[in-house]
């Protein structure tokens, strides 16, 4: 199937007959491309209230990976304070992100029970890799994340000795070398 490629500024369709999808904009009663890519026409909406077919321009190949509400992301803890843990989101599901996305796990979103007794430094430390879920797009700078589910939390952490630790319970991990136990909000992983 021959694909129609287009470049920015090209007129794709009449704005009166189509909706403008991603990669397009409306100008002078035309829908114009804003990217270099493949022109796609999606048929008139099924189920939703979309009445007209939609025109969009898809950049061939690389789909941008952006965290959405409800996505499970993998992130690395950058710094902590008593109110929150700041993280760098590295992957959405199995795919790495292309840009930097910041996230925060606030103290009330660390776990589901005994929220008022949560201590951030007993849950996360800088350098830990955590699995979290996107709660909301948050404020301008960071996504709001939660680890308040059993399968969310720390998936990889190094002990004070610098050795990757082994989970002992949902709030403890142990260093295999020194046998010291450290507190974390540990993710429960399925067998």
């Amino acid at each position, binding site marked *: 199937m021959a694909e129609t490629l287009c470049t920015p500024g090209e007129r794709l369709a009449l704005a009166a007959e189509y909706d403008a999808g991603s990669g397009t904009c409306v100008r002078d009663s035309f829908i114009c491309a804003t990217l270099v890519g493949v022109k796609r026409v999606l048929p008139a909406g099924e189920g939703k209230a979309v009445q007209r077919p939609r025109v969009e321009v898809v950049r061939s190949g690389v789909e941008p990976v952006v965290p959405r509400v409800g996505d499970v992301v*993998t992130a*690395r803890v950058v710094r902590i304070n008593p109110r929150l843990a700041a993280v*760098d989101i*590295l*992957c959405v*599901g*199995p*795919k*790495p992100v*292309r*840009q*930097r996305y910041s996230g925060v796990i606030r103290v009330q979103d660390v776990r589901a029970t005994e929220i008022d007794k949560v201590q951030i430094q007993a849950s996360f430390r800088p350098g830990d*890799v955590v*699995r979290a879920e996107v709660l909301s797009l948050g404020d301008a700078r960071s996504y709001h994340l939660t680890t308040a589910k059993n399968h969310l939390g720390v*998936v*990889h952490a190094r002990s004070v000795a610098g050795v990757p630790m082994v989970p002992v319970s949902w709030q403890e991990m142990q260093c295999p070398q020194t046998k010291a136990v450290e507190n974390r909000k540990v*993710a429960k*992983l*399925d*067998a």
Partner: protein
Amino acid sequence: MGRRRSAAAQPRQPLPSQAMSAAAAAAAPGGSEALQAEAFQRLYPDQYLAKFVAQGVRPDGRPLALPRATSIGLGVVTTADASALVKIGSTTVLAGAKCEVMPASADEPDKGRLVVQVEMAPLCSAECRPGRPSEAAQALGEQLGALMEGAGVVDRRQLCIDAGKAAWAVYLDLYVLDADGSLYDACLLAALATLASLRLHAVTVDDAGRIHKAGEDGAAAAPAAVAQQRPGSQQQGAAPPLRSLQLDCQPVSLTCGVYRGQLLVDPTAEEEPLLEALLTATVDEQGDVLGFYKAGGSATASQQRVLECIEAAKMRGKEVRGLLQQALEAAGVADGGAVAAGS
């Protein structure tokens, strides 16, 4: 966190599937989610590299002792008197030389100047910031300048035009356009290629301080200049003869990294931060060591490592000098080859 594409445009050795599956690991032990290779590399870069090295290869498919594909292009910038574009893998350095006549210095009346400057263009890496020259660029410039002087690459007496009166100042400007590891190696090679392909005009300076290219002013032209013009050659009016720069030696360097007891030759920018130590050895065609550099890192290097690195540099030197010779011949500026005016 600049993304670095895995070189869709570059020829790449096919990854041994063993190594790939050896590199496979989930984000969480026993986790049901599989991670893509790049995701794993982001999260656990050290483990990612370790898995490959354990199999004797690198993430880009190279054996541990293999440097990346290297290319040299000469004469790429016609506004410069000589230029070279060097690529080692993705690392790209563009060098250009411009010659200016200057009054001879009182301290060294029979020598000219060679000024080497390195600039890391803000385009070269996501971490680079425009503005003041970065520490890395200044260090590179300093190291290169010191090597040129210390190893005596160019005898500056050949830059003299008229002892005590005038001499050539050769300005060698290097621009790092893409920084992907082994910057010193690429800069040195670009500098070497540029100097090897540089041609100096034969000039004279009259008493009033005006510069004359030999051949323009009949009275000032030395008889030697006339003898250089071959009979029947196409000289359109003032076509000054050119002489090439004599290089007393051809230094070539190689950067190696030490990682988990192994020597990794020519590390990329992704590998560099994971290495325990970074060693750079510079050797000449006789196998003499012209320079060595090891600074910092998390580990000290044993003497054996240092010698290994020097041996690797010697082999690399042979390979690279061959490439340079090919490039010079292709551009028609090899020693003894026909010298076309203005080429």
